[in-house]
């Protein structure tokens, strides 16, 4: 199979969906003239024009709010947040409007909109340009949340998100944009709500997603050298959560570790742990372990940044504590 980068995969998804459906359009800061900070929109305005791929003012409430308004009026907007950190500026729009409008109005309308948000700590961007904030949106009914770990899923999930009639938050890790991987040619969709068992094993389940999935896989390699066979699950979607896949794995391995780059406290790991504890505790042979970022803002210095982020060794250590 051909190999392309994660950024190219998202670009293909955008182009195919814009080709297919004239209601799809894209807006955000520095996406048209610059092509996106990570080059993830390069070439799109040349293909579709600067009306359908539009640079916006630095007005996050207006960007998200107008996306919602356009969706209510029949369009299918894809809105880029620049950095996930700036979604904080538009929380009313995301939490009180985008997520609730359909329910509040008794199903009269829908908000078929995708909010794309680059996240993750990369190259000393410090506390306000490095976060992973997906957990906040697990708490808000009405949203769907997807978070791919590789180019194929990036393409398939983005296309699925664009075609979904619900508001979807699409988190894309900045350091993954340059990652190359096999992506099927042409039409390729990844269903929202389906996790992926990326590596099978009998001794422990490691649930992860996005960039940390790759650390989990490396941890699994190391553990295998010591005779521990880890099963690694890529969640891909965190709302709605694919409980079935997690439960089936936990039933088999009887041990669970969840690993992600977002802050451990109140993270997606806490939710997965709680769900498993509530419904599967009888199958577990030990405590559930969470691996995530330390409870501190992301520091600038290259000497400090790696210390606060979860590393391969942390995942290995967590597994060894319970296996």
């Amino acid at each position, binding site marked *: 199979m051909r190999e392309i980068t994660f950024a190219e995969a998202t670009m293909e998804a955008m182009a195919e969906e814009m080709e297919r459906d004239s209601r799809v359009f894209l807006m955000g800061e520095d996406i048209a003239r610059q092509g996106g900070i990570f080059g993830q929109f390069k070439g799109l305005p040349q293909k579709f024009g600067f009306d359908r791929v539009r640079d916006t003012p630095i007005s996050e409430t207006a960007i998200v709010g*107008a996306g919602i308004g356009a969706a209510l009026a029949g*369009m299918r907007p894809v809105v880029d947040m620049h950095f996930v950190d700036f979604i904080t500026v538009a929380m009313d729009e995301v939490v009180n409007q985008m997520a609730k409008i359909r329910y509040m109005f*008794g199903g009269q309308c829908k908000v078929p909109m995708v909010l794309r948000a680059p996240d993750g700590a990369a190259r000393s961007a410090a506390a306000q340009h490095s976060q992973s904030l997906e957990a906040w949106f697990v708490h808000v009914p009405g949203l769907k949340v997807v978070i791919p770990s590789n180019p194929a899923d990036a393409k398939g999930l983005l296309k699925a998100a664009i075609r979904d009639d619900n508001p979807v938050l699409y988190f894309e890790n900045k350091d993954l944009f340059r990652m190359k991987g096999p992506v099927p040619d042409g039409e390729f969709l990844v269903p929202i709500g389906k996790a992926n068992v990326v590596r099978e094993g009998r001794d422990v389940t490691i649930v992860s997603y996005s960039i940390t999935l790759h650390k989990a896989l490396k941890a699994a390699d190391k553990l295998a050298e010591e005779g521990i066979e880890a099963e690694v699950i890529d969640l891909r979607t965190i709302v709605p959560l694919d409980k079935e896949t997690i439960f089936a794995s936990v039933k088999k391995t009887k041990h669970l570790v969840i690993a992600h780059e977002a802050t451990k406290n109140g993270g997606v790991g806490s939710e997965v742990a709680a769900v498993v504890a509530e419904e599967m505790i009888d199958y577990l042979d030990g405590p559930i372990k969470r691996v995530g970022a330390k409870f501190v803002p992301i520091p600038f210095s290259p000497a400090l940044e790696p210390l606060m982020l979860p590393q391969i060794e942390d995942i290995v250590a967590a597994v060894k504590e319970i296996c």
Partner: protein
Amino acid sequence: MEFSQEQLEAFYRTMYTIRSFEEKINDLFLAGEIPGFVHLYIGEEAVATGVMANLRKTDYITSTHRGHGHTIAKGADLKRMMAEIFGKRTGYCRGKGGSMHIADFSIGMLGANGVVGGGFNLAVGAALAAKLMGTDQVAVCFFGDGASNRGTFHEGLNMAAVWKLPVVFVCENNQYASTTPYRTTTSVENIADRAIGYGIPGVVVDGNDVFAVYEAAQAAVERARSGGGPTLLEAKTYRIKGHFVGDPELYRTRQEVEEHLENDDPLKNFRRQVLAASRLSERELAEIEAQVREEIEEAVDFARKSPFPAPEELFEDLYVESGEAACGK
């Protein structure tokens, strides 16, 4: 400007419907028949009426926590409105929204909003959709004097202006944001003065005169529809009732309200004008009033007799289940 007999009757019918609807809500709320809390539009009827008379069914509006008047003037069904306010399943939102969240997407009413200043950018987005689709639809955003101090006001006006979107921003300056007189929180005498910051026309109009509102809105809507971009229209008006039903109104004197009621009530203004010009007679006005009151009684009756939502409806309407198949309504 010349107004036809039909227009005059329509103005009065709309204003009187809003007034009576709100008075009825007031009574029903005090009688304990309505849950939650309600914000009444009494005193501001000329604004919604004058603006909406310039709109088509396919044009969009966004509204506020004080949204009954906008909804009625856009042409919503009184029965379904009343049922929603009662929390019944026959209501516009099947009982999920209530007074602060009535919407009717079939007439371009994109919803009231419980978040002050939450509607600006929804209107901007609807106008952007119209522009991208090449229709000549217009979006009107209603908001209060208080809302004009939200950041969303600035972001929305700038975006609409720079993209020349077909939006009319209608500020209903009713002198107060909850308990706070706008002069104590607002850096300008006229909120319309802020238009200069966005390079768009800012127009002040007497919001208690339906004819003046109609004319000002006509120019703004025409400008928006023909590609001229947005206008900021400020209607100076007055909230005759409390901020919400049950408001002790400690921030103003009874005398202030009485004086306004006596001298500048939009319905009285209208009656005075049409009677003096012999355009409508007392009898014709009374006929309209009787019809409206009957309609409102029917709406109350409908709401009372309607069932509450069933427990299994709790989770309904959250997500669209069917994916793309359900597109295009």
